[in-house]
């Protein structure tokens, strides 16, 4: 099963099992979703529960918040993180704050999904990796499913959560094949996960960089360096303890993050490891991030701008 099919399976299961669940967003109905995640769902569940919206990101995200306040369990698909910038006011000022500024009177059980990331030559306006920005905001949860199992399991977990959950699906992962237990329900959304065991170095990553990091770990193994790969999975609330356990074993850390280096989520992970695990470190924490440039269109330039397997291997060797 692919990552895309796992999301669709999650959507279908959610729509089947809970009448309060509905899906809305740009082109989720007739078109079947810009990434085909919701193909067939309009036919199965009808236009009341699979709702095509106008290109009004701020209002349909805000309407998701309102519908959640009104007793529904909305899944809002914002086509891509790039367009989510038009809805940031609703995210930052309403979704994240309403519970707190009402003194705990309201919960907002809202799931917002969007594609994120670069790598497809879509240039400077369609290649953002801004999940780290979202993770800055208390009041929301931020998930970055990087496996087929998490693609479904995290969506179901988001729908069981009483608070607003933002799910960032890396666009390069949609065709990825993987294992999925048909009966698997909601995934844990509180912990990071070790995806590969190793004793020599800890590679921390999330989302679209996980497959690259695992491939780099295989290449390192052939060079007799055993890397432990930790998938952060949940950027907020962040599970720092899993990182520290690994660092206590390996004493070296490289963080791979597709966002720009300055102010990146990699910087946050690095700071927390330094604050809480300084004594475990035998070398400074290293970061592999995107180059500080709006994403160029040309293939070779885009490849150079993004973290790649080669640079991960090289960075580890240089530690």
């Amino acid at each position, binding site marked *: 099963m692919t990552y895309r099919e796992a999301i669709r399976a999650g959507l279908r299961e959610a729509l089947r099992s809970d009448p309060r669940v509905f899906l809305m967003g740009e082109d989720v109905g007739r078109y079947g979703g810009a990434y085909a995640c919701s193909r067939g769902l309009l036919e199965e569940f009808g236009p009341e529960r699979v709702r095509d919206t106008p290109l009004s990101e701020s209002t349909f995200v*805000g*309407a998701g918040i309102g519908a*959640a306040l*009104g007793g529904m369990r909305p899944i809002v698909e914002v086509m891509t993180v790039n367009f989510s910038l038009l809805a940031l*006011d609703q995210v930052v000022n309403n979704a994240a704050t309403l*519970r707190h500024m*009402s003194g705990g009177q309201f*919960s907002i059980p809202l799931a917002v999904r969007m594609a994120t990331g670069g790598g497809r030559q879509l240039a400077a306006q369609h290649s953002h990796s801004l999940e780290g920005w979202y993770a800055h905001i208390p009041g929301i949860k931020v998930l970055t499913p990087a496996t087929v199992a998490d693609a479904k399991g995290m969506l179901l977990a988001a729908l069981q959560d009483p608070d607003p959950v933002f799910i960032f699906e890396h666009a390069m992962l949609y065709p990825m094949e993987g294992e999925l237990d048909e009966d698997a329900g909601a995934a844990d959304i509180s912990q990071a996960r070790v995806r590969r065991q190793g004793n020599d170095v800890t590679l921390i990553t999330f989302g679209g960089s996980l497959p690259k990091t695992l491939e780099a770990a295989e290449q390192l193994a052939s060079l007799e360096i055993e890397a432990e790969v930790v998938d952060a999975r949940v950027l907020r609330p962040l599970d720092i303890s899993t990182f520290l356990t690994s660092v206590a074993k390996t004493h070296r850390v490289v963080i791979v993050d597709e966002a720009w280096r300055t102010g990146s989520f990699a910087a946050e992970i690095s700071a927390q490891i330094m604050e809480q695990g300084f004594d475990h470190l035998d070398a400074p924490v290293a970061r592999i991030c995107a180059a500080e440039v709006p994403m160029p269109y040309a293939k070779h330039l885009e490849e150079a701008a993004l973290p790649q397997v080669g640079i991960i291997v090289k960075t580890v060797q240089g530690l």
Partner: protein
Amino acid sequence: MSSRSLDLQGVSTTFTLTGEFEMQNIDINTIAQSDLQAVKQNHALTLLHEMLRIRRFEEKAAELYSLGMIRGFLHLYIGEEAVAVGAMQAFGQQDRIVATYREHGHALARGVPIRSLMAEMYGKANGCSRGRGGSMHLFDAGRRFYGGYAIVGGGLPIAVGLALADKLQSRPYVTACFFGDGAVAEGEFHESLNLAALWKLPVLFLCENNLYAMGTALARHQSQTDIAMKAQGYGFQGEAVDGMDVLAVEKATRRVADWVRQGKGPYLLEFRTYRFRAHSMYDPELYRTKEEVERWKERCPIATFQTWLRQQQLLADTTLAQIEAAVDHEIEDAIVFAEAGPSEPVEDLLRDVYTQEG
């Protein structure tokens, strides 16, 4: 004033002197003429009482602000009371209210307890938002008062979503969404009107046009200053109402709330009103003349309504004195409640960020 009329058709809600929410079901056909007159008088006096509560509450809040007892931003509604009080008569307990950061009047008119409002202004744990919101973020889930939005236009999409939830669950409720003329310039206004009309949602858009977006006059921020007309661009109806006439506001709102409740889609009312006080406590009011403000004050919704009530022989001096005394007493009591209220312990700083703590 002669155009005012007290139409009781469909009166269903009122508030007692203490601001508690009560339901009254009145069948006008079954009551005697003398009783009808009494009901009319009672309702009219309730409207006056509600407007006076808001006026005095805010006058006191301004006073407490200059004494440093209330901080943050304080946006006064003085001059616009007829809108909140008149409009709120049209909504039942199950209807939903979305307001702005100038929402003391809406909260009071909705029946949010005055004690909890004053305590909120004081930042106390017994405030309606536990002291986390302040003047701009008043909430009361039990009274379906959904706040309290301080980013102009930000409440409109929330209202659309609440209405969507009701429609999807086949509930006959109306979501009333208050906003100012400034919000009309925001994209969310246009997106929300479009979506509500497209999906035929039970939202009543209530624009309080006080002629200024903070300090920018309507004609300086709108290419088309007829706000009510803008609904037509989205295929539904809008109309302008004299927002200084509480009876006109009530009558219009009842009529269109019924329309919305019947599932006919959204409706836009533009209440033409005026803010007598500065935008906030920091505003030196350089953008309008004193003469303009004075001219509008001659149309004060409370003073003109009192005059009309006297002409109709519905208001005796003793009654007014009783109402004034009740309001003063209620506000003094609220201040005592707020001042005695507990401050939340700093150890609880991080509560209510997430539903499940930790």
